[in-house]
């Protein structure tokens, strides 16, 4: 396997040719915010939080889907990138009804942590306050579309890890929403195996265990990676 040498934030780093910039940055301890990324499922570069500057390219590149290359020069934390990341998190907060104080994931939420990390102290955009619904028709789980950031981690986990493909995305733009089967109530889904992996894959309080009250929904962030590592490498480690 060929080794590539590149620079990230001025540091000279060696990497395997099949690694992404995100993989390498993480190994080197260079922090890069992510939201749609989930270890164990395919990267989709949807959230744009891991965008980096690559010398020679006018376009910003998502680190999670950009493969390393020989002599690549990457910047991960320029003022431009930081301002875009802050803007992205603010837009996510403005798009749906993220009322942290009454959310099951308050205090254990990746979106909340991101907002703190990128320096969001208030949202400069008008909140859309869309009319979203909550589906608690499933026996054990619920989905609250008010809290959904459309990262599709549940969709990919259900499809690629569980193999059920219960979840998918319907609609376009800010009217997009996550559906079970053919937009039927989750409890009426014939494909759902009730495995609960989507609950753990969800970064916010959008998918939760029924009965969890405010701040009680703690998720096992390593579960999906654990399952995939066990399956592919026969190693029962996180």
């Amino acid at each position, binding site marked *: 396997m060929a080794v590539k040498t590149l620079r990230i934030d001025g540091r000279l780093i060696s990497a395997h040719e099949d690694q992404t910039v995100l993989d390498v940055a993480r190994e080197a301890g260079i922090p890069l915010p992510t939201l749609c990324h989930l270890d164990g499922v395919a990267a989709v570069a949807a959230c744009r939080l891991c965008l980096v500057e690559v010398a020679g390219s006018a376009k910003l590149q998502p680190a999670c889907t950009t493969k390393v290359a020989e002599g690549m020069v990457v910047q991960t934390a320029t003022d431009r990138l930081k301002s875009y990341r802050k803007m992205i998190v603010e837009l996510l907060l403005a798009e749906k009804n993220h*009322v*942290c*104080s009454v959310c099951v994931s308050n205090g254990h939420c990746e979106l909340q942590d991101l907002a703190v990390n990128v320096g969001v102290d*208030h949202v400069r955009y008008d909140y859309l306050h869309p009319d979203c619904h909550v589906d608690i028709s499933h026996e054990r789980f619920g989905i609250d579309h008010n809290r959904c950031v459309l990262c599709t981690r549940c969709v990919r986990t259900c499809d690629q890890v569980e193999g059920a493909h219960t979840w998918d995305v319907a609609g376009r733009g800010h009217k997009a929403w996550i559906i079970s089967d053919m937009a039927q109530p989750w409890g009426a889904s014939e494909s759902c195996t009730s495995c609960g992996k989507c609950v753990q894959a969800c970064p916010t309080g959008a998918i939760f265990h029924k009965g969890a009250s405010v701040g009680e929904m703690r998720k096992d962030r390593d579960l999906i990676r654990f399952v995939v590592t066990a399956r592919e490498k026969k190693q029962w480690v996180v």
Partner: protein
Amino acid sequence: MGRLRLATIWLGGCSGCHMSFLDIDEFLIDLAGLVDVVYSPLVDTKVYPKDVDVVLIEGAAASEEHIDLARLARKNTKKVVAFGDCAVTGNVTAMRNHLGPALVVLERAYLRDVDVRPGIPCEPGIVPVLLDRVRPLHEVIPVDGFIPGCPPPAKRIKEYLESTLANR
């Protein structure tokens, strides 16, 4: 330098932020030696005074009265602080926004499924007129600082006040 002229305001919120303010416990005694509380739901001043140094504003803007008071506070105050999640984001106060404009909200609350004396309160000059859309404070006036939390923990309030006093 004279004592810091501190004000607090309660707009569209539950007063939980003010309760948390009181939870700073013995620091209230230190604070009493360093600041004058010139306007607050906790003191008896009726009119927002001039030359206020810092105001902590709890709650979102939900009525016309809130907008008027916020604007007056901005005009008369050096440093305006959004105090708690309702002021910072709209929070629970803004959860009515998805229903629609004020009239729809009032009908939902006071007419629909109401058994005893249904009727929308309307006392011009007494009952403030609701805004069609609840707004966070920074959409109404420029804001200089933000203290998040529902309510903000007492420790956070204490640290904010300490740093404000230290950086005068």
